[in-house]
């Protein structure tokens, strides 16, 4: 912290566990008035957890919490707000069905003495507040109709103009365009000069370095470095984030990995110039048979939209898809499936039927191949049983309701349903997220096996390990655009992080 100023907020030896897993282990943290404090660290390093403690979201933790020299405990977000601490969470917490003005004044609508909401005053003041941040929107517009970046800006503006003296921003720039980021930074600097303390969490290390005074690095629930932003570099911060080889976990891929040279197989999937509103800009790539293409990027980089375009769930504004050399214009996910594309979404709930038996979950995507007008249940069971055996799904029965299986086995069923009649292109979103090491290894083996059988595979993930462990070629998405491609070269986790 800058010399000569005493901290307004001090945390000592903060420890916090979720269900036996320690998210924070004895962390010290201090914040002084009029500073912008950057926080970096990998997913799950503990940054957000610490900030949620400060903002009163997590009331249970051990350690000392000292505000203005007095030891304090917040029991709720309300307590924190009353003490002048506000947080913008990573997930938008706006109400899409309310107007812009109502969102700006959420929970604090100006009322007359009789308790009626003063609508006109609210709209006028909301408009003025937003204009100060360079946002010119109709305060009476429905918030959900605005682009996601603008919604994010409005939420940030709401918190920044709340008069809080400590403001925490968790990944505020992920959905913002470069000029919007500039405007946000200008506002943050102005607030800092007026004495507000700001904590800025981001995966974009350049952003952290540009706007912060101090930077703190987290790794595995510990604070591993604290430094002045002016005296450090991106490379140094990344090294602190992922740790030197000695301390790192086995599968953190600190060492360089050799990506193979692309084969001479034909491109099965060709994506050209795909754009989607504010999510994707001119994205092009192709995937060959027998190749795994990794698409890496931070949350909000446009991955999930891209995946949904590949599977016909979203339709791009511009650009084309071609499968096996034929241009495709998917009008539904059924079109994409018939064209030979398979899709495994991030969440199990979005791909599986928990109240149906395993065999119905597996056969659903191939019913038109294994039955005609009428179902053939014995064939369905046989096909499913073969997948259960091959993927070693436990327990090895196809009659059990899917909900009775463990998470990792459910995930395998989600893969199994595409494998009886292998597709030409397999799109996998976050295929190993939340899995334990054993299940992860199983998935890695399944994907390698499918590659050997000549599938073109696209793996989209926000976790560098996932991409590095699976991909033959990696492209990096940043704010909806392809910013880097790694092929036929050595690569390590820090180089990947640096590119994003």
């Amino acid at each position: 912290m800058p010399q000569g100023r005493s901290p307004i907020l001090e945390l000592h030896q903060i420890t916090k566990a979720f269900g036996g897993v320690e998210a924070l282990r004895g962390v010290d943290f201090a914040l002084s008035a009029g500073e912008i404090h950057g926080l970096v660290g990998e997913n799950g390093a503990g940054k957000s957890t610490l900030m949620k403690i400060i903002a009163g979201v997590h009331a249970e933790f051990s350690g000392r919490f000292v505000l203005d020299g007095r030891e304090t405990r917040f029991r709720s977000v309300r307590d924190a707000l009353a003490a002048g601490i506000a947080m913008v969470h990573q997930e938008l917490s706006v109400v899409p069905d309310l107007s812009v003005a109502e969102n700006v004044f959420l929970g604090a609508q100006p009322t007359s003495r009789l308790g009626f909401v003063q609508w006109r005053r609210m709209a006028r003041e909301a408009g003025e507040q937003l204009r100060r941040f360079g946002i010119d929107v109709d305060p009476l517009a429905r918030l959900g109709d605005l682009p996601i970046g603008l919604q994010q800006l409005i939420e940030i503006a709401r918190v920044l103009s709340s008069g809080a003296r400590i403001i925490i921003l968790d990944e505020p720039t992920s959905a913002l365009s470069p000029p919007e980021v500039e405007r946000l930074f200008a506002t943050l600097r102005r607030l800092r000069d007026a004495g507000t303390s700001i904590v800025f969490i981001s995966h974009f290390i350049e952003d952290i370095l540009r706007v912060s005074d101090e930077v703190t690095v987290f790794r595995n629930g510990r604070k591993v470095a604290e430094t002045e932003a002016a005296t450090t570099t991106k490379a140094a911060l990344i090294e602190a984030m992922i740790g030197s080889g000695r301390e790192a976990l086995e599968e953190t891929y600190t060492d360089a990995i050799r990506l193979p040279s692309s084969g001479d197989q034909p491109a099965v999937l060709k994506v050209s110039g795909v754009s989607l509103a504010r999510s994707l800009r001119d994205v092009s790539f192709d995937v060959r048979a027998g190749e795994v293409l990794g698409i890496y990027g931070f949350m909000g980089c446009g991955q999930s939209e891209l995946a949904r375009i590949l599977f016909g769930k979203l339709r791009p504004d511009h650009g084309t898809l071609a499968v096996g050399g034929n241009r495709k214009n998917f009008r539904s996910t059924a079109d994409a499936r018939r064209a030979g594309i398979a899709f495994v979404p991030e969440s199990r709930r979005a791909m599986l039927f928990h109240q149906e038996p395993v065999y119905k979950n597996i056969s659903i995507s191939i019913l038109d191949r294994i039955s005609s007008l009428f179902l053939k249940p014995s064939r369905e069971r046989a096909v499913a049983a073969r997948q259960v055996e091959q993927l070693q799904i436990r327990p090895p029965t196809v009659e059990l309701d899917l909900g009775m299986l463990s998470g990792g086995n459910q995930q395998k069923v989600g893969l199994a349903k595409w494998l009886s009649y292998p597709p030409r292109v397999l799109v996998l979103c976050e295929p190993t997220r939340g899995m334990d090491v054993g299940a992860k290894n199983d998935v890695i083996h399944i994907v390698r096996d499918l590659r050997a059988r000549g599938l073109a595979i696209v793996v989209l993930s926000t976790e560098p390990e996932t991409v590095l462990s699976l991909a033959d070629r990696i492209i990096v998405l940043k704010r909806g655009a392809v910013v880097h491609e790694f092929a036929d070269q050595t690569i390590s986790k820090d180089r990947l992080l640096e590119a994003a």
Partner: protein
Amino acid sequence: MVTGDSATVSATDRKQPRTIAAMLRSQMRNIAPFLTLIFLTGFFAIASPSFATLDNVGNILTQVSVTGIIAVGLTFVILCAEIDLSVASIANVTGIAVAYFTQQETYVNIANIPVPGWAAILLALALCAMLGVVNALGLTIIGIPSFIMTLAMMQIAAGISALLVRGQIAYKVPDIVATFGSSAIGGIPWIVIVAALMLLAGHIVLGYTRFGRYVYMVGGNREAAEYSGLNVNLILGSVMVISAICSGIGGMLGVAHFGSAQQNEFDTYLLDSIAAVVVGGTSLFGGRGGIGNTIVGLFVLGVLNNGLDHVNIDSFLKILIRGLILLAALVINVYAQRLRARVAE
């Protein structure tokens, strides 16, 4: 969600329900309506000597036939976690249309357009199918919730009915419709046979065809159905059209059965058909239940309506009793869904 739970829950602590109590709980949706039916039948059989007679069984079957025909289509809709509030109106307008295209007696003051009987039937069927297509397009392409879309259709169909009959009553329908609606073969009313055949057809489609499986899967988890590469909109649209056509058939036979076609003739059938499906145990949240449930639901309603006529109860109180029974069924329906979800997750 992917995160978290995979680590904390293993296969071993998720056992299949083994005890009889757990089995009964997970089957509550099917057992409760059946017990209700047995209880009501027993009650009325004891309370009234005229209830448990062969003649009266025939009465009950005839009384639930039109509801049953409409409920076939509605079962498809509710299995998809949608609703169709236009069934009674579409039944009404189809019944009126088939009369409108039939030569009426001279004393009937309706400017109708007589065509041959087969053409009248086809035109009436085309009308109800078209109204179903409008429901389907509103739901899938425009994205209007089915509750509102079919509420509008209820009014539209009633409007068409009003324009066709203009407050008058038509009596004549094509001969084949009259036969199926109001005559009997070997002592069994044709309308009962038609209802039974349609219920059977509905059961076969839902239980044994690919389309039927898709209906259950879309109802069970629409997002997963879409990400499994099913054309969810096509399936939702189809069930709306199926519902409209079933309603239309019910309407035509109903008009023949009642002997007249007029405005507001089918108003009670909206509540009755929804009640039959839901009382039978088909989940309002979609994906659970089927024609078997609907048949039990039909009998519960049929026995209730008929039985109340056989015992000495204030006729105004009957309406309240029907309402209470429906409420009880809804409570069981929602409760069964929750129990089932708890067992499965």
